[in-house]
């Protein structure tokens, strides 16, 4: 793969980067608004985060430190290949530590460790339009955004309650940004929605196939939609992380054996490992064989 060395820094040519940066600037100026951009072919298939990769490529510089996570983990195939891609085409520093990263590209999670001023979170987005499932016509959804006609979003939540007795939407839970645009936070669990609210970090969203970029600037109001009598709630877990004992982190179920045994561990591997290295323990942390299973499990 040495021929990659002949590519421009961060793969994209400078003109394309400028085009994407203009879209990003517009997105920052209108929080939550989906800005169309001329999405380019990337050397990876759609569904692998080409939107996020293009956003990262447009903003990354030689002094940046990049972290890539997928479902909270740094070591999954998707995260590993995107990280390897940027190392090849930009030779930037990479890290698995949330606190060291200046840019974090993510699929499906927001790190547990609170983000700081100066950090940028880049989301990979498959479907940017929150109204899509109820109104397939793009001309109509654009008009609804323009005129702030968001009754339909509550129709979706109404249907949830009518069917399940509560709002059963757990991923891609719609939010209203700065009191104006309704936005799909990408398929992150609703557990992460409160982390978007007034975050000191810049949050950028890239949808490659759908050719849209949107943004939440630092310290922006992000409110999850709900009903007065069915207020927004995040998932809670009945037990702490089996490896680091954390309560209040987002847990994944990891299958331990083929007899149905399982444990719940932090989906944010960096957060979990940090806590373990600080001496925190869960009820299964003493057993090194189990810890290996954890690493294998998150790659599922």
């Amino acid at each position, binding site marked *: 793969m040495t021929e990659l060395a002949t590519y421009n820094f961060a793969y994209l040519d400078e003109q394309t980067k400028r085009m994407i940066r203009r879209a990003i600037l517009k997105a920052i100026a209108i929080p939550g608004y989906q800005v169309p951009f001329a999405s380019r072919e990337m050397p990876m298939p759609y569904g692998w985060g080409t939107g996020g990769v293009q956003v990262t490529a447009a903003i990354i510089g030689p002094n940046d430190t990049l972290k890539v996570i997928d479902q909270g983990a740094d070591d999954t195939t998707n995260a590993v290949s995107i990280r390897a891609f940027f190392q090849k085409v930009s030779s930037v520093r990479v890290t698995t530590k949330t606190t060291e990263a200046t840019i974090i590209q993510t699929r499906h999670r927001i790190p547990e460790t609170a983000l700081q001023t100066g950090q940028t979170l880049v989301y990979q987005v498959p479907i940017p339009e929150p109204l899509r499932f*109820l109104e397939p016509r793009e001309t109509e959804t654009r*008009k609804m955004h323009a*005129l*702030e*006609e*968001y*009754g*339909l979003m*509550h*129709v979706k939540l*109404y*249907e949830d*309650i*009518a*069917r399940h007795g509560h709002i059963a939407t757990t991923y891609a839970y719609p939010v209203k940004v700065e009191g104006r645009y309704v936005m799909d936070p990408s398929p992150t669990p609703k557990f992460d929605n409160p982390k978007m609210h007034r975050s000191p970090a810049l949050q950028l969203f890239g949808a490659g196939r759908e050719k849209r970029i949107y943004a939440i600037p630092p310290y922006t109001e992000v409110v999850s939609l*709900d*009903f*007065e*009598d*069915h207020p927004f709630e995040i998932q809670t877990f009945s037990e702490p992380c089996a490896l680091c004992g954390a309560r209040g982190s987002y847990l994944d179920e990891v299958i331990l054996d083929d007899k149905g045994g399982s444990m719940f561990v932090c989906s944010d591997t960096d957060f979990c490992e940090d806590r373990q290295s600080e001496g925190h323990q869960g009820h299964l942390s003493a057993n090194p064989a189990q810890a290996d299973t954890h690493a294998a499990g998150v790659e599922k």
Partner: protein
Amino acid sequence: MSDMPLLRVNAVSKFYGSRIGCQNVSFELWPGEVLAVVGESGSGKTTLLDCLATRLAPSTGSVEYRMRDGQFRDLYRMSEAERRFLMRTDWGFVHQNPADGLRMTVSAGANVGERLMAVGDRHYGNIRAAAADWLGRVEIAADRIDDQPRAFSGGMRQRLQIARNLVTNPRLVFMDEPTGGLDVSVQARLLDLLRGLVSDLGLAAIVVTHDLAVARLLSHRMMVMKDGRIVETGLTDRVLDDPQAPYTQLLVSSILQV
């Protein structure tokens, strides 16, 4: 009835190139009044309806609506946001084909509740109670509230569409052949229901139909259209029992022969 009309239509014409959609139509509609616009297909009645309901901009003329604050507003000088807000609050539009006016993959309750949510109602229990109440008023059994209209008969779908339109207590409802696709026995029941609702709620309505029986049952006043123009207008019973224009006479007699 108020001493001011609800709608003022002034010399509305719609041309498609050199072809005439409707020409020089003027009338006033009063609160609580039901006006039937009658004609054969191609008479311009649907074009006129679309011009009135802000679905199609007229080529010339104006349509003024008296807002809840009492002020007349020219519909085509309002912003699109204002027009759309009016359409989902103070107005209703009942399509001939219920699928055009319903969300077929959303439950009956949510179909009715959508307008409430669109105007900012954020209490699930209240929305559901209002939906249940309206389903009852259009004679849909309470236990169908979570079913999708896909599972409903044509008559039920049409009644659901009516409930969906009336939940915000509109003052004006447009209806385009509201009983068009239905069996005769189902039509009769729907017409009874509509007549009851319109008079109970004091609704003003403009009903476009080719069916003189529908006009007879629902409307106080009717306009007969041919080739884009009004050829006769008057109280419904008078027009049907003693038609003046030769075309109306032909229409009435041909219907009576059917």
